[in-house]
């Protein structure tokens, strides 16, 4: 391999500086600040603060609602990740086989991607609205007495559907391009050896899609944990009540709605640790099984 030589020893650091300063200012500094604040109880206006050690963490963990929020986050994130990936994969496999009018099919399937997330969320909220929503009417026609905002499960269901719907197009685009990069020769060779197209898919095509799938898995878990914030906010219309919220949304509720900086920071530190653990697991355990050509 050719070694790149810089004319000046400081040059590489200078080139790295913009990136590093962005990471420092927008990630490391706020993270350090969150860790500091999590040990204090602070007056919102910043007049007084009391060092309380681990009390904020104890209060967070012992609150009856925290475990319910954590469970909801786990189930919601798993469901959103699983359904948005699997539906997108199914659509991509089917769209890949379409020959006539292929571009129309693909464009229509990517369509939703062009909608800005808040607009998509708002559309979803209106479709499920308990007074005017057509999906709500449909559920009632089918004998399901759906009431978003009143029934915990119904609200969770609507959030999940909206979040999945919003995420399918981006997964679809990646899966489709992944499928199209599977070499024709490999597919033909496989067709000679094995007649079952389903088995061919799982033994030949899917492993070749693994790098794409792994990338999408990480993107989707991140999406389900963090980027669904806007959708949850829209479904709740600003008032949590007895509705499901995720851990990230709870950080916002306690910090920005309730002005409890210490408690909110403690929750975000817990989340930081969870994300760190998740990252380690993803790259240590799953990526080993992924083969990049």
């Amino acid at each position, binding site marked *: 391999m050719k070694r790149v030589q810089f004319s000046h020893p400081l040059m590489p650091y200078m080139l790295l500086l913009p990136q590093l300063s962005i990471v420092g200012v927008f990630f490391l500094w706020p993270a350090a600040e969150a860790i500091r604040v999590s040990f204090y*109880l*602070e*007056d*919102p*206006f*910043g*007049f*007084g*603060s*009391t060092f*309380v050690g681990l009390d904020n963490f104890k*209060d967070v963990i012992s*609150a*009856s*609602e925290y475990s319910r929020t954590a469970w909801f986050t786990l189930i919601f994130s798993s469901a959103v990740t699983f359904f948005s990936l699997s539906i997108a994969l199914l659509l991509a496999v089917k769209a890949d086989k379409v020959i006539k009018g292929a571009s129309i099919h693909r464009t229509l399937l990517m369509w939703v991607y062009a909608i800005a997330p808040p607009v998509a969320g708002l559309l979803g909220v209106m479709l499920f609205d*308990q*007074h005017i929503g057509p999906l709500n009417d449909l559920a009632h026609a089918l004998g399901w007495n759906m*009431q*978003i*905002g*009143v*029934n*915990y499960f119904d609200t969770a269901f609507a959030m999940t559907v909206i979040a999945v719907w919003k995420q399918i197009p981006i997964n679809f685009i990646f899966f489709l391009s992944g499928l199209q990069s599977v070499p024709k020769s490999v597919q033909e060779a496989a067709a000679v050896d094995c007649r079952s197209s389903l088995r061919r898919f799982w033994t030949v095509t899917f492993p070749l899609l693994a790098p794409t799938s792994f990338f999408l898995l990480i993107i989707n878990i991140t999406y389900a944990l963090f980027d669904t914030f806007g959708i949850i906010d829209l479904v709740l*219309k*600003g*008032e*949590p*009540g*007895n*509705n499901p919220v995720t851990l990230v949304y709870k950080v916002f*509720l*306690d910090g*920005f*709605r*309730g*002005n*409890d900086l*210490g*408690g909110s920071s403690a929750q975000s530190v817990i989340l930081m640790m969870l994300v760190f653990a998740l990252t380690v697991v993803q790259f240590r355990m799953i990526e080993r099984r992924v083969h990049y050509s």
Partner: protein
Amino acid sequence: MTLCKAAGVTTFAALVMSSTASFAATEINWWHAMGGRLGEVVNEISTKYNASQDVCNLTPVYKGTYEEALTAGIAAFRAGEQPNILQVFDAGSATIIGAEGAIVPAEDLLKNAGVEFNIEDYIAGVRYFYADAAGKMIGMPFNSSTPILYYNEEALAKAGVEAPETWEEFKAIAPKLKAAGYVPLAQSHLSWIFTENFMSRHNLPFATNNNGYDGAKGTRILVNNDAIKMHFTRVKSWLDAGLFGYYGIGWADNQKVFQDGTVAMWLGSSGSFGGLTKSTDFKFSATYLPYWASVSETGTNTFIGGAALFAMSGKPKAENDCVANFYSFLTSADIQYYWHQETGYVPITNAAYDLATKDGYYDRVPAAEIGIKQLTLPGGDNTKGYRMGFYVQVRDVMNREYGKIFSGEKSVDDAFQTIEEEANKLLARFAKTSD
């Protein structure tokens, strides 16, 4: 165009004539949370104020919901960029009044500016809600409302019943309304209407330390009592029997069903009056918030809800004087009467109330007077107001637990037990923040 020019010429003439006037008017800004029609009225009032004098120029800025406006004000204060006036809602009052260095009390501000101030000029229900333990007015009450009962006159006539004064009467008429094809009752704010004002309507203590006014230290909530548990037990049984409708925690979801005629009676804000007039096509009227005759013989006055204006500290005297000047303008009888008519919020001064009465407004629209009459009902020791920290979160806990009662997930006893525990924990945490 000619009008603009004419106005410009007069202003210029005024400036030239007053030798001491500086050429630029003192700029003051006002962060508020009044959206929709209310925001328009805020802008109209500001325009009127700016046109009324040329020393100060007021700029109102809409900052989103009440919670968002408070958070924006706090963030701005920490960055040294605070507005002159911040509108803070009832549930946030402990937060802002507790931060003594962040605000200039309204009473001091007015007195420093040489404006006469007499707290007795303000109507009784409004006077002390945003005051400190000694009775000094800290926040200038602005949009003040109180929960009242609206009823669809056609629905009540169809069922052959009168609007209830007490919950006992409601119990008697609700089945008739149901038989006439209506959901008898809905409400829009469980913590405000069925908790805080349940306490005030029955003169029950809501928190220790004089409802929290004597300081955050050691304040404990007294919400876990038999009277309110009885109330929620009844409400849950009405819900199960189809005599009460619950459409979630959102305000609008519960108001909408009254507007479209599904629900015959609705507990909302006296400030909802203006909006309802425009959005309903049936005759409606209003009466007092019902009370349990078994708990309180006559029922006492309710708390105000809504928000107050707080002058933020760290501003030059000239700007503070402008804020004081604006406060006097805002509380003048004419402006209060205008605000009252446009929005349905109560007039906050006796003078404005008298003006509305003399003008015959209440003869024309009797329902518009219900809120202010309810606020001036005879009160008791516990009906002045309440002051609790982290109260937004306390309300969130209440709303969550009430949701669980209504869904059948939790018994009334368990839910109130949880509310008491979690609220006291939050209150204790809040007391520590200001150490």
